[in-house]
């Protein structure tokens, strides 16, 4: 149903991200390299040095400065992109909150990588999961195609006047960042029509008149002032209001893009896979969903009513959609690729349980912590998860709600 002629390119996830940024008329890119995000920065440097973009590209001295620069460049009215992961994202932690608090619509790609110690360059979701409360929209992609598509959508979502929130797009280290895939790319002019120019909304200025929400000498405003107990809380409440608006914006942008490209990812928030009549459901994020879909197909052939729910948008958390998607299954296995030490389960597990607390019939919900530090998650292990779900559905008993899988214990 694609209405537009697209070109197929062999791109890794990182390259797909860089290519999307190249096409999106980005004004400023400030970034610092970290494996496995480096290719994004390297490809983009090539675009700059070969004159293929007129973006101002700054190779800063740290991730802290990468985001600090991105934030003020965005506040000055520029469209801004940066990228990081793991230690780099952790170093940005303070400024993540400042960026969302200043309502700067920065777009950032994250190649999900384990956090030290011990130092490890491979995939897990610890780095971005710990930042889920930082006020950023979080989108986790399944493959390089989706990485490309999501970066383009991210600019529209971030800069939308109902959201004005920064967006992180997460792709799994190496599995996606470094693996070549056939990626359909839109023609430049189609991308430019889709993303458009950054629209700066009007806000109430100091003299009560409407002024553009940016640092503009013709209409001076003060950004990032001291803000104590008499107003801070309202400003935080407004951030939550923006988050409440975000699902609609994400879905609208997703649908418009789907009409243009012929590609869709559920409703943009969640992607149910063979879930309609399923008894058993796995829930996961990122590239593991691809492997899980294969396992589901396999089980379906054997008559097992298996399904999958992939969470694409993790912030804002699509509570209602998740509840609607899962409330008719008998048993749910939540796969967490990060761990909250001492919390009896990973973050996704806790929030899936929270989403289903208000369901009329609550399914059994178990948690599998998997794949930390890039530990492989082969189809056989996923199959094991469904086997235990079968047992739970049959016996109506859960022996161990939280388990680690694929680890020597």
């Amino acid at each position: 149903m694609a209405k537009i002629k697209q070109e197929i390119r062999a791109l890794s996830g990182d390259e797909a991200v860089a290519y999307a940024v190249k096409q999106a008329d980005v004004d400023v890119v400030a970034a610092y390299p970290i494996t496995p995000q480096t290719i994004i920065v390297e490809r983009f440097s090539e675009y700059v040095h070969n004159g293929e973009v007129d973006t101002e590209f700054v190779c800063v001295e740290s991730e802290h400065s990468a985001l600090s620069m991105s934030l003020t460049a965005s506040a000055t009215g520029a469209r801004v992109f940066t990228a990081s992961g793991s230690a780099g994202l952790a170093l940005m932690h303070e400024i993540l909150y400042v960026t969302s608090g200043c309502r700067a619509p920065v777009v950032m790609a994250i190649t999900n990588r384990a956090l030290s110690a011990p130092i490890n360059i491979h995939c897990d979701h610890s780095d971005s999961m710990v930042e889920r409360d930082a006020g950023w929209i979080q989108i986790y992609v399944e493959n390089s195609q989706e990485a490309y598509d999501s970066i383009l959508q991210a600019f529209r979502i971030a800069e939308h006047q109902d959201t004005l929130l920064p967006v992180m797009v997460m792709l799994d280290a190496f599995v996606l960042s470094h693996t070549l895939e056939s990626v359909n790319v839109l023609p430049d002019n189609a991308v430019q029509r889709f993303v458009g120019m950054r629209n700066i909304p009007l806000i109430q200025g100091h003299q009560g008149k409407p002024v553009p929400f940016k640092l503009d000498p013709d209409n001076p405003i003060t950004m990032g002032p001291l803000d104590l107990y008499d107003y801070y809380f309202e400003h935080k409440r407004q951030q939550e209001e923006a988050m409440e608006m975000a699902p609609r914006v994400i879905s609208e942008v997703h649908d418009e893009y789907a009409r243009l490209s012929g590609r869709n990812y559920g409703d943009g928030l969640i992607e149910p896979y063979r879930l309609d009549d399923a008894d058993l459901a796995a829930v996961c994020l990122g590239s593991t969903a691809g492997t899980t879909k294969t396992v589901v197909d396999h089980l379906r052939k054997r008559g097992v009513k298996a399904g999958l729910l992939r969470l694409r948008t993790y912030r804002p958390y699509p509570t209602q959609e998740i509840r609607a998607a899962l409330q008719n299954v008998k048993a749910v296995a939540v796969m967490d690729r990060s761990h909250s030490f001492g919390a009896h389960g990973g973050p996704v597990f806790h929030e899936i349980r929270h989403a289903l607390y208000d369901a009329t019939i609550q399914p059994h919900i178990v948690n599998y912590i998997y794949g930390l530090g890039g530990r492989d998650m082969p189809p056989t292990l996923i199959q094991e998860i469904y086997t235990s779900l079968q047992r739970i559905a049959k016996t109506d008993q859960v022996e161990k709600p939280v388990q680690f899988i694929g680890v020597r214990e």
Partner: protein
Amino acid sequence: MASQWKFTTKDLAEKPEILISGHRACAGCGPATVYRQVLKAVRGPTIATNATGCMEVVSTIYPYTAWSIPWIHTAFENVAANAAGIETALKALKKKGRLKQENVDVIAFAGDGGTYDIGIQALSGAAERGHNFLYVLYDNEAYMNTGIQRSGSTPHGAWTTTSPAGRVIPGKPEYKKPIADIMVAHAIPYVATASPAHWRDLMIKARKGIEANGPAFLQVIAPCPRGWRYDISRTIEIARLAVNTCVFPLWEAVDGEYVLSAASKVIALKPDRKIPVRDYLKAQGRFRHLFTPEFEHIIDEIQQIIDRRWKRLLKRCNM
């Protein structure tokens, strides 16, 4: 860098205040005076960014602001990166024909904590990359906003709340980091020191920094009556004493070439005009504990350090 601006008192009276009255700085606040003087020297449309610290806190509190130009604060340690972000965005927008103004200048303001200590990485990075902005360090020689704690700028022997005048350790044991020399070593086009007691010199330097084609760094001694423990009426007097004792000599380095500024040059030419450091220390309560038989030798030590640094500066200035 031929600045046409002469900064006569008449010129200044005619120029509008950018940091307007109503802010909440303490009476006698040196940094507030420094800001006022620097901002009188802007040449046109300007965007300012500020590190966390006293001046960020006193000049804004939602829904009020003392800033009549666009201004942004984000954090403590990143003001140079913030300035770099603004400058880069302006460059990008200009290139694409989306900037209304012909030119917009960028000024970053930070205290000594935000410069010598937690902010030096961002500053060094921005200087190395050559972003075109003026960085103004208002040096009140401690973390005043959080209650007078020591910084890399606090001078030897000074009392602060984290370098108390104890019975065993009388104030700060370490020496003041030569931050302006460190910035000269970055090979940036313009570095200067200034004092609000020499306001015309300060303004000309601020303007030169703004007009410089690349990063410019201006270190301004900014006495703080709260932290330095002196009467609020004496701020400018102490800022002048700092120069006349050679504790804080005035100079500029254009493309790395050091030149003494008038107030310090006079002393270089007529050394008998150099006032003993003792007089400077005596004027401030933060050095009071040194005026005891037990610790008096530290005053001589400080004099020696100041003399040595002054001599080194004269050499750099070919004097």
